[in-house]
């Protein structure tokens, strides 16, 4: 019986060490060194992904038969706004997408303008940060075409996506760098599975940035803005969930 004492002691010690480690992670995360490590890892993952594949490497595309029967709506599933509701009912006749910021020729495009541009159709998998996936066929013009038409200035380092929806009282937004902005699969989708995008999935316009997680795929798009830095936008972390929940800006993992 005398054995039990020390054994329990060792077990408690191990449990203690594990708990210490567990608590320490949150503490370390909040420290400057922890934050540096997390940010370094994030930048390294972006570099590693783009070195292993090419910068323009495509995300897998599926056949129409591989699509999921429905496409989950998550986060904002509508826009609580009179103009938006009136536009939904009418089929978005007056919806405008602005291309602005560090560009030589700002643009303001109607839905008809966007549909008249060369279109890319891609059946891709949408991966939510939570873990689930859905597959759908998206149609829309490539972002690169719009950026070229607007003549993006050299000083621009990021493309910012402005959205109509609000969540927890904040306006949604997102941002990507120029590598993803000029990626062939980065499109401004206006159709999902051959139909105008449903409200829950971001009607009338949603970004597709296929090598990153769902929270980068900004919905209810109103403007595309070329910027040198996003430090002054929102809380300065480059996106809604980055600001609100601390998600990583590079969402390739």
């Amino acid at each position, binding site marked *: 019986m005398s054995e039990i004492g020390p054994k329990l002691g060792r077990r408690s010690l191990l449990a203690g060490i594990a708990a210490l480690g*567990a608590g320490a992670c949150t503490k370390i995360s909040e420290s400057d060194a922890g934050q540096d490590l997390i940010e370094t890892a994030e930048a390294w993952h972006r570099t590693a992904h783009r070195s292993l594949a090419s910068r323009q490497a495509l995300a897998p595309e599926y056949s129409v038969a591989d699509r999921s029967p429905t496409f989950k709506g998550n986060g904002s599933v509508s826009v609580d706004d009179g103009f938006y509701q009136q536009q939904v009912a009418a089929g978005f006749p007056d919806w405008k997408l602005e291309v602005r910021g560090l560009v030589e020729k700002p643009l303001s495009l109607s839905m008809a303008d966007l549909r008249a541009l060369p279109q890319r159709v891609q059946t891709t*998998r949408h991966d939510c940060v939570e*873990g689930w996936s859905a597959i759908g066929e998206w149609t829309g013009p490539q972002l690169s075409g719009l950026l070229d038409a607007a003549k993006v200035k050299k000083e621009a380092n990021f493309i910012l996506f402005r959205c109509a929806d609000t969540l927890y009282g904040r306006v949604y937004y997102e941002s990507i760098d120029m590598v993803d902005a000029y990626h062939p699969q980065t499109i401004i989708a206006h159709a999902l599975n051959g139909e105008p995008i449903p409200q829950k999935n971001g009607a009338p316009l949603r970004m597709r940035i296929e090598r990153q997680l769902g929270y980068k795929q900004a919905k209810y798009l109103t403007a595309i803005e070329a910027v040198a830095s996003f430090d002054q936008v929102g809380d300065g972390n480059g996106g809604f969930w980055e600001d609100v929940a601390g998600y990583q800006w590079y969402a390739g993992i």
Partner: protein
Amino acid sequence: MSTGKPKHSLSTRIWHWINAWAIIVLFMTGLNISNAHKYLYWGDYGFNPADAWLAVIKFPGWATIPQGYNLAVARDWHVIAAWPFGVGLLFIWIAMLVNGHFFRDLRTGLRDWTPGAVIASLKAHSGDADGAAHSYNPVQRILYGMVFGVLLPLMVLTGLSISPGFEPAAPWLVDLFGGRQSARSVHFLTAWAIFGFFVIHIGLALIDWRLIAEMITGGKREAAAPPAPEPEPLPPIEGTPEHV
């Protein structure tokens, strides 16, 4: 009789403790991440709980890192701990092949997989007070072989498969597992298989603290056993020290 060589080489010991840290962080952050969507699917897609093959429980805060739901922090540490885990696995494989640990202790032959060999090693285990089995028995070889050769590599490969940014580099990897949601399911199942090993491993190590000490100091490797003396009658105690 000692050979002068440590029972556990320095490379094994360093890897063991770094990997122990990494596995604890990966497992406990993994449980936190699981709480974000508690359903597992087979195939490429899956989001509807009705299609799930398994509805996972919500893991309590004490079992997760951090201690309460926080997907951002859990993911931050999960992908950081994945580096020492993945690179460490590559390192220990190279070390084991170079220093002979693999060929000496882990490689199995057909005769190790027979029921007779398994029963014999289990029997040898119960009763050997000072751990004469310095060369690993068939059960140890099979278990460690499964962990090093199957479970740990599976964690790295399924983990990579879940990453949409990595996928363009090796789309065949995701196909190999039958789609991203299948890879995610295998990731989850393998994590629990490793947890099962971890429980047995810790349980057996805690029976004799010297085994843990040896994984720090290295211990002493016994020379090849001389002709066995008559076995002495063993004191009637249960659960004898041995590490698996």
